Each structure stands twice: as structure tokens, then as C-alpha cells.
């Protein structure tokens, strides 16, 4: 029991050790400016990683979220210039949910492997973004409405609004996963699809719904990023899918499904963001940073396999 508990806390211990090591190596890490940077950077990825956690618990996988971030940011900005802030935000989130629904239907109805499905939509959606925007930022020579821009800059209780979004989502979505019958059915479907089916769970709907969550949350992240960048950027969100997947795995979710917790994925996000931030502060060459982050992803996956074997 104690041993299981300790194994479950490995991500948190890793995060604390990483934080302490970086703080010792470079005092600038703990400066208020840097810490608030880390929080804002983590905010966008956290929202994506939470959606990814739904999909991965359900036994799936989603590579399309980075492209969805760009799509939703651009659609949000376009609609906002025509129809106002509320319509823009709603459109950004809705377009993300729509891509998620498409992913979910392809995976459950056409039975295409999730990796291939979302690899396809990742490339396809990115193409659509460039077609839609003419590969220009949105809007080109105007600016987005001021309140939307303020949302990306201003703070509440000393903390950026952008950070409060994932905080609120974390509480709400953790409830959904842990306390509702729907949440139970997501874990059961990911844990053993056949057994869930024989227990009367409509597994195809459950799986499809996880992709809708993931797409919608990537849409939210896209809107947040547009607010921060004060525009919709067609190139935004590249490699976000990999960071998010790595964060979920670092947080201890099993890639074969049925396991995982949102708050642990958030810990995983902070490991990724603080690692990147620390390497930046230490002036590590950006190519070496990629090598380090790639190695961390492989280590996390290897740890997942080791746990599965011991299981």
C-alpha cells in the first residue's frame, strides 16, 4: 500500500526536485516575473492536457490538438471582428469541439486507429487554417476588441486571468471524471472496453465524447492563446500536441487507457514547462533543449511500460 502510494507520487516528487535544482542553479527562476511567465505558459498547455487526459483515459490518443489551437484562435478572431467577443469565443470553442466530434466518429464508426485518424486531422486542419487565413495573422491591420486583449494581460488577485481558466476547469472537470456516472464509464471503457460493453456501457459514445472534450478544450486553449497573442496566428500551437501528450504520460496516465487523473496531468505540464524555462534561464542552446525534452518523453513512456509490466 505505502509502496503504491509512493509510486503514485513520483510525478510530484520529480516536479519538486526539478524546481529545487533549477532554483539553486539560477536564482532568477524564483523571481516574480519569471514565475508568472511560467504560470501563463503552463495555462494554455494545461487546458489542452486536460482534454488529452480524457482521451487517454478512454483508451484513445489525439495528435490534432495543436492544429485545433491554431484553427480555433483564427476562427475566434475572424468571428470576433464581425460579431463581437462572445460570438468569437463561442465559435472558437465550437470549432474545436467539431473537429473532436469528427475524430470521435472516425475512430468509433469507421474504426480507424486513433493515431492515424488524428495524424490525418492534424495535417488536414493545419491546411484548412492556412487556406482560411491566407497564411496571414487575423486580423491583419486592425486590432481585436480591447476587452479581449485585456483578458490576456490583466490579473485577478495578482494572477493572470489566463491562469484562472485552467484552475476553474480543473475543479469542474475533476468532478466530472471522479464523481459522475459518465466519468466512471470513461475509466471503465479505457480499462476494458469489452467488459464495459457487456456491462451495458455505450462504449462508442463514451469514446467519441472524450474526443469532443479534447477538441473543445483545445478550442478553449486556442482562444486563450489568441487573447495572449492579440491575434489569431495560423502557425500557433505547433508541437503542442506532443507537449500535452508528454505531460499526461509524465503525470502517470497509462497509455493503454483506464488510468489517469487531471491534477496529475497538470503536474506533468509543470514538469515540461519548468524544464523548458529552466534550460532557457541557464542559456542552454535551444537545440539541446529539444534533445533534453525528447529524452524526458522517452523516459516517461519507459516508466509507463515498467509500471505496466510490474502491475
Amino acid at each position, binding site marked *: 500500500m505505502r509502496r503504491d502510494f509512493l509510486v503514485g507520487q513520483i510525478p510530484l516528487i520529480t516536479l519538486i526536485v526539478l524546481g529545487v535544482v533549477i532554483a539553486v542553479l539560477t536564482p532568477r527562476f524564483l523571481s516574480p516575473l519569471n514565475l508568472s511567465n511560467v504560470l501563463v505558459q503552463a495555462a494554455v498547455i494545461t487546458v489542452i492536457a486536460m482534454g488529452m487526459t480524457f482521451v487517454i483515459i478512454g483508451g484513445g490518443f489525439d495528435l490534432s490538438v495543436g492544429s485545433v489551437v491554431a484553427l480555433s484562435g483564427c476562427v475566434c478572431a475572424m468571428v470576433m471582428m464581425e460579431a463581437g467577443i462572445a460570438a468569437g469565443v463561442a465559435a472558437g470553442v465550437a470549432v474545436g469541439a467539431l473537429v473532436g466530434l469528427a475524430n470521435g466518429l472516425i475512430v468509433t464508426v469507421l474504426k480507424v486507429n486513433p493515431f492515424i485518424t488524428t495524424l490525418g486531422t492534424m495535417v488536414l486542419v493545419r491546411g484548412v487554417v492556412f487556406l482560411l487565413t491566407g497564411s496571414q495573422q487575423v486580423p491583419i491591420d486592425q486590432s481585436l476588441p480591447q476587452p479581449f486583449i485585456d483578458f490576456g494581460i490583466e490579473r485577478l488577485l495578482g494572477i493572470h486571468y489566463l491562469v484562472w481558466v485552467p484552475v476553474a476547469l480543473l475543479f469542474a472537470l475533476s468532478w466530472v471524471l471522479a464523481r*459522475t*456516472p*459518465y466519468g*466512471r464509464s470513461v475509466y*471503465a471503457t479505457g480499462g476494458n472496453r469489452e467488459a464495459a*460493453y*457487456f*456491462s*451495458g*456501457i455505450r462504449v462508442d459514445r463514451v469514446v467519441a465524447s472524450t474526443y469532443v472534450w479534447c477538441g473543445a478544450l483545445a478550442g478553449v486553449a486556442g482562444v486563450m492563446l489568441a487573447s495572449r497573442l492579440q491575434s489569431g496566428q495560423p502557425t500557433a500551437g505547433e508541437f503542442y500536441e506532443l507537449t500535452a501528450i508528454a505531460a499526461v504520460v509524465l503525470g502517470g496516465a497509462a497509455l493503454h487507457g483506464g488510468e489517469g487523473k487531471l491534477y496529475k496531468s497538470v503536474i506533468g505540464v509543470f514538469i515540461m514547462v519548468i524544464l523548458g524555462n529552466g534550460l532557457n534561464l541557464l542559456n542552454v542552446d535551444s537545440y539541446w533543449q529539444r534533445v533534453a525534452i525528447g529524452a524526458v518523453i522517452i523516459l516517461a513512456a519507459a516508466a509507463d511500460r515498467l509500471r505496466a509490466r510490474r502491475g
Partner: protein
Amino acid sequence: MPTPVLAAEDLSKRFIAIKALDHVSFELAAGEVHALVGENGAGKSTLIKVFGGIHRPDSGRVLVDGAPVELHSPADAYAKGIAVIGQELRVVPALSVAENVMLGHLPTRPLVPGLAATACLRLDRARMRAAAAAALGRLNLAFDLDQRVDQLTFAERQSVAIARALSRNARVLVLDEPTAALEEREVQSLFAVIEALKAAGVAILYVSHRLDEIVAIADRCTVMRDGRVVADLARGAFSAAELARHMTGRDVAEERAGAAAAPGEVLLEAALGGDVRLHAREVVGLAGLLGSGTTELLRRLFGAAGGARLQMRGRALVTRHPADSIAAGIGMVPNERILGLVLDQTVRDNVVLPNLARFGAWWRMDDAAATRVVRELLEALDVRPPDPSAVVRRLSGGNQQKVILAKWLAARIDVLLMDEPTQGIDVAAKAQIHRLMREFAGRGGAVLFASSELDEIVGQSDGVLAMRRQAISARMARGAGLTEQAVRDAITYQR
């Protein structure tokens, strides 16, 4: 007495809190069929795994031909002539029979005549086929050597695996539950193969839950309980009842369904390959050989294999998905435990799964109520430990099967469909499951259970439906000529 081929001396093995083997000594002689029986968790699997090189004992020795050996890996065991044939057969589906028999020591010849370098060898097909035919011939088996193994039945693949062990000069063959997936006819062919192995001087360690088989084939029988050897009996000194008594440490009165209570109103009616009609307070056995359609019939009734039209309490409905049947009051225990349980979740989560709507509202589960109900069920079903937060994977097979039953007892269902509900579990758990089936019927429910064991069908049923070639071939009622022979005649193909 000659030196035993394989022996264990004072073996002990402990897993964290459990003493899996407690000073076990054991001897296996050449040309002998030595059965090993015991309830789930008695230590049989651990002992086999020590012989197979998978587990290392904490203390004690393994001897081959009287000389102590250290078995560090399955390859070590194989090299000493010990081959374990488990329920998962190590055959390569895409290769031919001959290739599978000879796998691991395929005969080769030089690529170019005269050139003897090891890197320039090619497969010697002629010798491979000859050697494979010889190994199969010693077992009196005649297979098409070029047939791909994925086209064979399970029983045939099992024979290929045995032939491979023989071709590598295995002198000890460990058969772990070899008949679990076999039809009765195939069991007889397996016994013929075993006789041939005996004649060839191979020692056979035969592990099975089916005590009647052991009485039929074993020369000697070792009974294990709680990690210890509690009896070592020679042929003639054991009967199925005697073995069951040693296994459980008490007399298991093989409970039989009494005189059929008057059946109640019709609960379920369907026309699937013949009329199916289940009454309240009735246990109906579904007899049929593997492939006769019993599994398909149960799954269609449950909505897990295409839609089925049926009537529940006179109300017509179509079941397209298990959710439809569950809502109508039908539950199902599938033929494999992996289809019934999310192994890495807790007992409570598993029991709650088909009853999500019952415990709480859509936005909030009532975990306290679920825990209370599940604990009561576990105690009623004698699941050990009766702990709702135990992870299902850690339970024994019999306890896992009871958890699957608990899923449906927690639900408000009237009809329970069960596919091979006692397959691979020990006699005590089996008797408990039989009792639970009757209790469920006694409370006004109906049970339809499929089994390949005829004594179970005849012993537990108020009525029997026999299936042959995807259709119901006969209907029998208790007291009206319901015998094993009558059921056997109804399910086997007429020549």
C-alpha cells in the same frame, strides 16, 4: 524404485504475505501420468512455474534424474527436458504445422553444397518434414504438414505444441488445464495422445480442475492445499469425491437441484434458432459442443451480437445493445472473465458499472451507498476478502467469478444468462455458484446457463435446451428422461 525424472525437495516460495509453497516435496516418474489438483491459490501454478523456470524457489531443490538443477529461465527448463504446455499455446499462427513442430531447432543444410559456414545455411525442408512427421507419428497424429497453424482448431494446435516438445526430446511434459477449452470428443483424442506419450516413456504432470478426468487418466495424484501437499494417492485410491474432500479439507456435498418447483410465469420468450422460453423460478441448462451456437444464442439474447427480438414479461422489445437488455432486466455472465471485469479497477467500481443509474444522479454518484451495497453482496457471496476497495486483478478466479455475479445481483434483473459460469474454478467455488444460481431462481428469477460439462447440465437444471449446428435440437425436463446420455445424444452429430 527407479530415480524419478523430476523431483522437488522441500520447496518453499513466498510472495509478500502469501506462502505459495510451504515445504513441498514431489516426485514424477518416467511413463507416469501424475495429476496435480488443488483449489485456486493452493500453489499448483507456483509449483509448475518453478518447474518451468519462471519462479525461483526461496528454499529447497529441484532435481532432474536425481541431480539438483537450477532453473533460471524457461529456456533452462526446456534444456533439461521439461516442457510446459499452458492454456496459451506458444505456436506461430502464420507458420506451417511442420515448421511449428520443428521451431527452435529447424534442420539446415549449406546454401551451396560443400560450403559449411554457419552464415550460409538454408532450411532443409525435406528433413524438417520428415522429423515433424516422425514426432507427430509417435503421437499417432496425422496432420497435413503444410497446413498453416492458424487454420487448426485449439485442440489441434495443442497437439502441435506437444509434438514440438517431443521433437526436442522433452522427458517431462507439464499440461496446465489442457482440457479447459476442449470439447468432449477432443478430450478423448488428447487422452489418446497422452497414452502414446506414456508409452514413449515421457513423464506427464497433469494439472486440471476436472476431477473426473483425473480419475480417468492419472496413475497418481498429488493434492495441494494452502501451499502444502496434503495427499499423494496412487491409482485406485482416489475418487472424485475423495479428491474434493482433500482439496477443501471438508466434505463438499455435491448439491443437486431438488425436485423442480412449479415453474412460474413466462419471463422471457424469443425465437432464435428455435423457441426459447424461460419461466420464473427455473434454471435452464443450455447444452452444446464448442461451435454449436450456445455462446451466440446467449449473446444475441443479451443484445451483444446483432439485434434480437424478444418478449420480456409479455412486452415485446428489440435488444440491439447490452444497455437495452439490462434496462429490460436481463443480465449476462460472459464465457471469459476478461469480458466481465475491468481487472485494474476495484470490486466496487466493477459491481457498480452496470448499475450506474441506480447509485446516484447523473451529476453525482452516491459512493457511500454503493460501498454499503457492495459489501453486503460480497459477504453474501462469500468473496474473500469482502473488501469493496480490493483491486479485482488480485482476487482468485473463483472470487472474480463471484464479483461478476455480484454485478447482476446488485442490479434489478429477472433473467440471468450465464456462459460457462464455472469454467476453470475450483470445486468449492463451483458449488457456491451453483447454489447462487438456484437462489436467484428461488427469488423468482430465471437462469439460462451454457456448459460443456454434461454432469453440470444434468445436475443443475430444471430443464435443458440442447443445441446442435446453431439450432435447438432438443428440449428436456427434469424427471422426464434427463440423463447425461440423452443430452450427449442430442448435442452430437448424428452419423
